[in-house]
């Protein structure tokens, strides 16, 4: 049941849905710019308060739409186990191998969580409100050949499909009496082969079909490509980018000046 929950929540969170938000109406290029801004700032800055403020800004962006917030929560649920393992690992290893104080360790951990979450939110907003086709068009506009980007985009699109397939495989194997929840860790890892191998085989078959279908419909026929509906950089995009940059800048200025005061 647990495993199924993880599949489902991640799957659900990353899926593009046509629920019409402000972000759906944005040019994919502005969303890409927003991701770049968020990543650069999160990585460049090492102040706890600044990182937390940026995280709060991002969460408020999500909060503009309840569906997005729900997706974020369900993604957190899915990743919670993974994240907590990493945190525990980090804390334990730093405690053993360095002489940092507990307070420092905790603050470092919170900072890295804030960084990861900033990244996750930005990407979540892009993926759930932008179709891969729009992203491809955005990249083509900056002169990157479409045949190079398609593989990444298809990989992204396949994530939910493969999760779904894994769930069916998991069910089929449980029906044969494999108990994935029982036994030692080593044993469980050994059992997971029963899911991994069929998943790989089915994915390869799927990929082969897809490649054939794409080639036969003219994929890679020419170096260039047209788009049936152009993306447009509009007033709302300018507004969005200006707002985001202003907020980020304000946060940075505010906290660096405060810290300089003391």
């Amino acid at each position, binding site marked *: 049941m647990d495993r199924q929950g993880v599949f489902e929540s991640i799957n659900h969170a990353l899926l*593009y849905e046509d629920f019409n938000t402000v972000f759906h109406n944005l040019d994919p290029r502005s969303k890409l710019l927003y991701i770049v801004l968020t990543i650069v700032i999160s990585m460049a800055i090492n102040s706890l308060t600044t990182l937390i403020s940026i995280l709060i800004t991002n969460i408020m962006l999500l909060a503009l739409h309840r569906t997005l917030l729900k997706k974020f929560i369900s993604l957190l649920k899915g990743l919670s186990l993974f994240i907590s393992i990493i945190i525990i690992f980090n804390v334990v290893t730093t405690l053993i191998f360095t002489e940092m104080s507990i307070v420092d360790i905790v603050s470092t951990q919170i900072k890295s969580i804030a960084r990861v979450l900033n990244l996750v939110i930005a990407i979540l907003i892009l993926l759930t409100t932008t179709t891969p*086709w729009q992203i491809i068009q955005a990249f083509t506009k900056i002169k990157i050949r479409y045949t190079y980007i398609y593989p990444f985009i298809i990989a992204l699109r396949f994530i939910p499909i493969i999760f779904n397939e894994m769930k069916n495989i998991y069910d*089929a*194997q449980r*029906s*044969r009496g494999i108990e994935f929840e029982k036994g030692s860790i080593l044993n469980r890892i050994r059992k997971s082969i029963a899911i991994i191998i069929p998943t790989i085989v089915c994915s390869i078959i799927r990929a082969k079909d*897809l490649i054939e279908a794409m*080639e036969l*419909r003219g994929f890679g026929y020419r170096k260039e490509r047209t788009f049936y509906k152009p993306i447009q950089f509009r007033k709302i995009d300018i507004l969005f980018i200006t707002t985001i940059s202003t907020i980020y800048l304000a946060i940075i200025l505010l906290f660096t000046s405060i810290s300089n005061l003391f």
Partner: protein
Amino acid sequence: MANKAIELKNITYFYPNTSAPALENINLSIDYGEFIAIAGPSGGGKSTLCRIIVGLIPHVYGGSLAGEVYVDGVNVVDKGIKGVAGKVGIVLQIPENQIVNLIVEEEIAFPLENFLFDIDTASKRLEDVLKDLEISYLRYRTTNTLSGGEIQKVVLASVLAYKPKILILDEPLAHLDPYSVRDLLTLLYKIHETENLTIVVIEHRLTELIKYISRLIVLDRHVIVDDEPRKALLKIINSGFSRGIEIPPISKLFSMIKTDFPPINIDESIEYFTELLNKDSIRCKDSAIHGENKDVGNSEEPVITVENLWYVYPNGVAALRNVNIDIYKGEFIALVGANGSGKTTLIKHLNGILKPSRGRVLVFGKDTSRCSVAELARYIGIVFQNPLHQFFKETVLEEVIFTAKSMGVRNADERATSILKAFNLHHLGDRSPYEISVGEQRRLAIASILVYDPHIIALDEATAGIDFSLKMELLKILIDLVRKGKTVILATHDIEFLTYAPINRVIVLNNGEVIAQGPSREILYNDAVLAKARIAPPQIPTLINGIGIGGCIKPLNEKELYLYIKSGIDG
């Protein structure tokens, strides 16, 4: 200037690392504007032929190809896929795997963009094809929320958008429910008539298809039959080449009665029937064809009880609504319904993979909400639709031994060997489960469940994608199980298959509700119920109802009807 749409000359082909040819000395020419069906058994080279025509062979698959291939005048062997892309469109076997984009209109525009259509032309083509295929309502939907029939139409639209001269479909009907089959075929016929498009359909399910085609080709490594549909059917029936091909039951019936002009649609057959036989001569003899279904042990406790079962998916969609079913020991049950009616969801409740949102399911008196799947699996074995979802061992034998061991069967090795023998798979014991044929994989999937001898066995859509002779092979296995006192539950939309099976009870699902249950003669003759469940009735019952003697005799398949007619004539 080319005068043939497709021309194959002396084609012989070997897949890489094989010593037996997949196709041998094929000569075939197809004119513009023809609507052709290519039938044949699984492994007879149908898909191979299709790959040769579009240039996937030899350009992607390798192997050795001898002979010449011309498509719209282009030498495919020389020019490759790019030489024919744009002239020929293809819909592959599993259309779901063919989808690249997330939004329906993006998917349809995909080839237009590749072929560098400008915005105005692309939008116009998009509009037109949406209208032609009557799928404008799908335009902004995400492709991962579509039903099987819808996906197929979207893929078809994406291909037709660039107006190829030739359209090829590889087993388009395999995974569709009967209504979607009719829907797709009428659509294809319409396009064929209005656009004068050359269509080649590769398919062994001929029952619905044969009405529309202009020529039927049978392929089993060689071209065995190549003729107009009626003559081809006669040749197939008379020569015993029917292996693997699903011939319409009405055509089989009339070939048994010995007419040399087999009807291929219901209206014709009704006319024929009335001509051949005096309707009044059919007397209502209760015995032979009426209710010889045995009633199975209602006195006993049911082995499965489903009580007020509701299941609601996390997204809020109710997949099952207040389902109540009792299943008794030794019953052979068919669970029918269109795609999306809740069959798979119900099956997944039987061994506790899914737990009821409301109500309960009891298996041998055990409440499934309180038992683990492994515990319930001892009583009920489930064979899912895709055999590839369960194979992960290196050999066929290990695959079976694995289940036996994980279910705690004593002398697992012996059991595994004997079940492989029973399923005629023992000679494949050390082969990889991925190397064997589709039919063998299907049998292996069933064998690896039956090895631990569960009391109940449930199969989900077990006939999807396998040819007629494999279906009959499967049926034998199932009948044998029932004879041994096992309870068999078969979830399917393959309604013609049911007419050959000694089903005790048909349960009809529609939209998550049980709308009818009863003996097959009752249900398969109930047009109203079937229509409500979006299932097309099988041919022989349609014929009998069409003549208006459904109240008198109720044969399910052509053999029963033939025997009845014979006994009527003889005395």
